[in-house]
């Protein structure tokens, strides 16, 4: 890949200007305002009148007690929920996605149909899949309880989305269902780039299928799978719609995004909500920077 370096600096500025202005207007400026609001006591009803309160939304000592976001147990619960959700669901998606990709990589009659079917969960809007699953997981009339009772796995219906011990698992189940196709497709793309001779050589040498997978396939597709994992993890950290629709504002499943929006919109506390948003932004920005830094060699090679 080589590029033409003729043309003036002004020409390039003009070419980039539309995107730069747009990104500043919809991302840069709003982000700056959100961070600014987190140092104020602004309320949603009247965004024009507020006073600067410094770090009070984050942490303040008042009458010998700590207040603010960093002393809020509901917030820390949301942080824990988000991390738990991210780690567990991304891990499950990766294992399942790789398994499905290995299956689709084989040649068998009707492979095109199976590949198309795997895309279906991905094509369904998150809100729709959340509602479909909340119907399937319904405590009285749900098909999942019916199937589990039929198989003799449980003796009476479970309240999947209402029971605090189960609801996080229900959320993870739906997320895994929805996003495994993405993982499978990206892994499949990585698999298809591997040279066929490699596997023929392994076969000729009599290496077992399982050993070939662990010693040859996995190390070779690992970089591609890692990209998908990072992508999904950053996406899972900001999860909102699935949890909002499946379990509403229940504290058992509340994520950082759900917490921030509840403060901002439902309680109209723009200052406090912005502080939570800013913290979430910092967490994701930190993760993004780490991942980009770790992958910078590949990035520079490619571009």
């Amino acid at each position, binding site marked *: 890949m*080589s*590029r*033409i370096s003729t*043309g003036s600096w002004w020409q*390039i500025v*003009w*070419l*980039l200007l*539309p*995107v730069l202005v*747009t*990104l500043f*207007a*919809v*991302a840069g*400026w*709003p*982000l700056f*305002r*959100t961070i600014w609001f987190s140092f104020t006591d602004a309320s949603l009803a009247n*965004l024009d009148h507020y006073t600067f309160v410094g770090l009070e939304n984050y942490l303040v000592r008042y009458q010998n007690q700590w207040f603010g976001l960093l002393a809020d147990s509901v917030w820390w619960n949301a942080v824990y929920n988000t991390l738990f959700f991210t780690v567990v669901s991304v891990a499950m998606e990766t294992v399942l996605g790789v398994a*499905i990709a290995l*299956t689709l990589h084989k040649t068998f009659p009707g492979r095109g149909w*199976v*590949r198309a*079917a*795997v895309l*279906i*969960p*991905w*094509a*369904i*809007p*998150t*809100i*729709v899949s959340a*509602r*479909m*699953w909340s*119907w399937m997981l319904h405590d009285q*009339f749900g*098909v999942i309880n*019916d199937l589990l009772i039929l198989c003799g796995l449980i003796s009476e219906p479970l309240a999947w989305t209402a029971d605090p011990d189960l609801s996080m698992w229900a959320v993870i189940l739906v997320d895994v*269902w929805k996003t495994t196709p993405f993982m499978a*497709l990206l892994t499949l793309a990585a698999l298809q780039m591997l040279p066929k001779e490699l596997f023929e050589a392994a076969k000729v040498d009599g290496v077992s299928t399982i050993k070939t997978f662990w010693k040859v396939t996995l190390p070779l597709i690992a970089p591609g799978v890692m*990209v998908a994992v990072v992508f999904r993890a950053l996406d899972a950290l*900001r999860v*909102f719609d699935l949890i*909002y629709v499946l379990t509403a504002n229940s504290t058992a499943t509340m994520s950082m995004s759900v917490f921030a*929006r509840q403060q*901002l*919109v439902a309680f109209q506390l*723009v200052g406090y*909500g912005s502080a939570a*948003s800013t913290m979430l932004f910092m967490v994701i*920005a930190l993760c993004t920077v780490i*991942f980009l830094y770790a992958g*910078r060699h590949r*990035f520079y090679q*490619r571009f």
Partner: protein
Amino acid sequence: MLGGIVFISVFKVDFGLAISSLKIKKILTKIGFTIWLVCILIYCIFPFYYAIISSFKEGAELFQVDYWVKHWHWTNYLAVFEQQPFGINIINSIIVSTLVVFISLLLSVTAAYALGRREFYGRKTLLMVVLGVSMFPQVAVLSGLFELIQWLGLYNHLGSLILSYLIFTVPFTVWVLTTFMQQLPLEIEEAAIMDGARPRHMIFNVFLPLLWPALVTTGLLAFIAAWNEFLFALTFTLSEHQRTVPVAIALISGASQHELPWGIIMAASVVVTVPLIVLVLIFQRKIVAGLTAGAVKG
């Protein structure tokens, strides 16, 4: 001599056994593989299949689990459009998604040309920034955007959604189009530069015709993302008539929390999902290509 016969017979028996056990193993593997395939198929398809079945149920039928349609009732489908402005919600979604895709493609074509075909100081940093913005948590800009939208007088107006959706579509289209641009051979430009073409001509007369397949793929993926968006649509619109499809479906409610009209919700879900599934199946290969180009980063 005898020893030799014994040896041969032993060998033969052994050989025969080896073949039959290999055959059994092969058949077992095949059966296992087929079962695994069926499991994958059921896992992927059953939830939507069940939503379709439920959407044709009426009244008390819903309170009984069935695995196929016993009676076809279209009442839920009629109710979706009668009890709320669902038709308008669909039109809203189409307007917003189409305009967002059109605007972001238009904006990003020139930037993708500069980023993919030209060499300049800070190019890689800029690509990193674009990638970083695509990872933005939407909630992080919520209060800032809310202020901006109020200031522009766009609250509870489709314009607010068109503006705010650019935050996730523009980085995506810039990124994917840049990678597509890079793959085109250098000779294309050399010939055009010899002829003294200006960047504007280069982009719109030389590159755009070559980029059509990429534009379709990128546009389709951006369209799906805009169609499915929920957080901004929920926050920036208020009245029923300004809602997009995801918000409308999420807010369908009954007399109480425990009396949700599940038949109607499932009918609405089926109505908006079938076109998406058809689109995705038609453009299957292109979508996979676009997803890989978009995600194979750094």
